[in-house]
């Protein structure tokens, strides 16, 4: 299942450990090959940082913050979610 795969990515990044049981939405961008995952749709991200320790993630992970709180992340260079687009 798509959601399980995304949750596996979440669990592989220590900074997002608290979101492993959190609801999320996702959107795949086929042009840039990026899967966007959103924890909180109400808040727009104002900052980002690179998840250097996303060991088991399929691709590189960019975590998005709004006023210091994680509101979502993007998996770069991934095929994950391609089928859903």
């Amino acid at each position, binding site marked *: 299942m798509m959601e399980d795969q995304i949750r596996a990515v979440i669990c592989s990044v220590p900074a997002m450990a608290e979101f492993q049981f959190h609801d999320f939405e996702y959107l795949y961008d086929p042009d*840039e090959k*990026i899967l966007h995952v959103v924890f909180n749709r109400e808040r727009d*991200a*104002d*900052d*980002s*940082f*690179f*998840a*250097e320790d996303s060991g088991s993630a399929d*691709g*590189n992970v*960019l975590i998005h913050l709004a006023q210091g709180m994680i509101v979502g992340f*993007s998996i*770069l*260079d991934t095929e994950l979610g391609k089928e859903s687009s």
Partner: protein
Amino acid sequence: MQDLIEKLKAETAAFDIVDAQTLDAYRLKYLVRKGEIAELFEQMKSAPKEQKPLLGKLLNELKQLAEAKFEDAKARVESTRTEETVIDLTLPGRRGFLGAEHPVQKVLGDMKRIFLGMGFQIATGPEIEKDEYNFTMLNFPPDHPARDMQDTFFLSKDVVLRTHTSPVQIRVMLSQAPPVRVICPGKVYRNEDVSARSLCVFHQLEGLYVDTGVTFADLKGTLYSFAKQMFGSDVKIRFRPSFFPFTEPSAEMDITCYLCGGKGCRVCKHTGWLEILGSGMVHPNVLRNCNIDPERYSGFAWGMGIERTTLLRYGITDIRYLLENDVRMLNQFE
């Protein structure tokens, strides 16, 4: 891309943050959503996949350094801003509150200046005085009512709190040969109830002039000159016969009421006159007691209450106001 990151790292390090304006400029240039560091994160998305971990690491470092610099500078600028707030040059200045001379001291000072201008000198003496100087040498008979304990504070049988400043005149005459020209200001004590018109401690100013050929005309001239300088050039004076043990003849001096000019009002009790002092020619017995020959020398003396004169001068209705230290009253004399 790596070069861009290094270049931006050097640029942020060199950015000079000196105040709130440059701090905000730094934040807007590098740290906001559309800032240059966020822009590099966007560019990283299009970098080759195998370079992304390295670029991401470098970008994280750049971001942390830039944010740390911002936080340090923010703390520094805010501490400076606090000092600026304390010293706000746009605030109006704080007015200093100066003390003012007490009305009694003001009146006393005016009197001293007038008599010093006439050539009198200031003499002072103890407030605890011998009965001899306070009464006996001033020609008070042994049975005079002023010697009663109802009127005088006796510290012992022969020592009193002086009831007038006349004993200072005795001390001066005992210590120097005529001519004598002195005024004696100071506190005196009377065993009286405190009321709107009397106090048990108050100030007096007495004067003494002893020389050859001193007459009542000198007394009148001196006190008339004083009254004109103290109460105005239009003032008129009158003398009424009176009695004091230490002067003969004795007289009380009135001035025309400063408020109504002699027409009669509440202050002068519709008489047109205000009593301001007692005076007279020094009694020959007093001169004799001080080893001055009354056949050769004569003199005059006078005495007045400073508080009473202050009441008259400023139209104060209760003498106790002068001692209450109520700033609402005292501020009127600044």
